[in-house]
């Protein structure tokens, strides 16, 4: 048999078998992967709003906003996904705020690539808990090396000021956009 024909036949059949096998595996895996993704987002939505029982997704110009409701169906606030530049790369946050967009309920770090052991401490509870019931009026501020005095202040992590600052900046930025959106009754 002609060698080049053999080459084509062999390669084509290998590629065909590979395609068929992969589409099968993909069909099996796709629902699992999708449900994992949904479970992850849902967990984060409820993590920043302890009393929330259900949510509604709102697509906005600045990203995804989830309006959350308590067990009686009364809206208690928003869970907002936002991202921005940190020290070494992107930081992605889930921010929980009340309905008036003036008080933060909690935050959760979804993704970050900060320096391990320094900037990555923004994922630790000690830092995140500072944002519980923090006032965002007029904006979130940070202080360095002393205990925060005002209700809208947090203390930056020693040795990771830029990472701490970035988290505040991301929150302030997205809240400002959300307030504009709120004024035009889109939220």
């Amino acid at each position, binding site marked *: 048999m002609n060698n080049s024909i053999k080459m084509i036949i062999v390669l084509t059949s290998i*590629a065909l078998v*590979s*395609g068929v096998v*992969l*589409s099968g*595996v*993909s069909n099996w895996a796709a629902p699992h992967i999708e449900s994992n993704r949904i479970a992850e987002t849902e967990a984060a939505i409820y993590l920043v709003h302890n009393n929330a029982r259900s949510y509604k997704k709102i697509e906005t110009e600045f990203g995804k906003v989830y309006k959350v409701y308590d067990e009686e169906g009364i809206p208690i606030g928003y869970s907002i996904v936002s991202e921005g*530049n940190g*020290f*070494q*790369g992107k930081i992605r946050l889930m921010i929980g705020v009340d309905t008036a967009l003036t008080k933060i309920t909690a935050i959760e770090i979804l993704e970050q*690539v900060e*320096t391990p052991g320094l900037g990555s401490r923004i994922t630790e509870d000690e830092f995140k808990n500072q944002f519980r019931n923090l006032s965002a009026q007029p904006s979130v501020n940070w202080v360095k090396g002393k205990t925060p005095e005002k209700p809208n202040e947090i203390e930056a992590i020693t040795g990771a000021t*830029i990472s701490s600052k970035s988290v505040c900046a991301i929150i302030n930025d997205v809240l400002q956009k959300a307030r504009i959106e709120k004024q035009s009754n889109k939220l």
Partner: protein
Amino acid sequence: MELLIIFISAAIVNNFVLSLFLGICPFIGVSNKISSSLSMGMATTFVMVITAVVSWILYFKILLPYNLKFLQIPSFILVIASLVQFVEMVIKKVSQPIYRSLGIFLPLITTNCAILGLALLLSMRNYSFWESIFFGLGAGAGFTMALVIMAGIREELEMADVPEAFKGAPITLITAGLLALAFMGFAGMI
């Protein structure tokens, strides 16, 4: 501005070799002489930019719209392999001097995981067309820079009295560690 950030991030802050660990094999294998590592770096940069363009079109215009995402890995690697062959043929036809200086490095590039890494990362990060091109440029520049710096150090290292057991790969890795530490100084740039 966004494009510039992507370029600097890929080239310096999150350097492909020193902080993402992509393309370690050529980094250890070819970094003996400054001249050859410069050629290798340029050949890689060239292939990276073309790969960025082609894999962007392949992923966002063919695989995603037709719901063929599961073919991503096989199709990417095949495209890269044939792309390298194609580039080699074109360079051979167009310019003999360039072919003589870059030619022998081109086949090595197929197995350079930095190229496939680039294609995978730009699809994972949902980069736009231009962002992908700047990402490829930055990654290539960063790779070249790391390779040339390393070659410079290794040329000096020839003269140093390295313990017998540490000659070759071990001392290169330790040197790379110190370089990676130095590159951390760029971390706050973005």
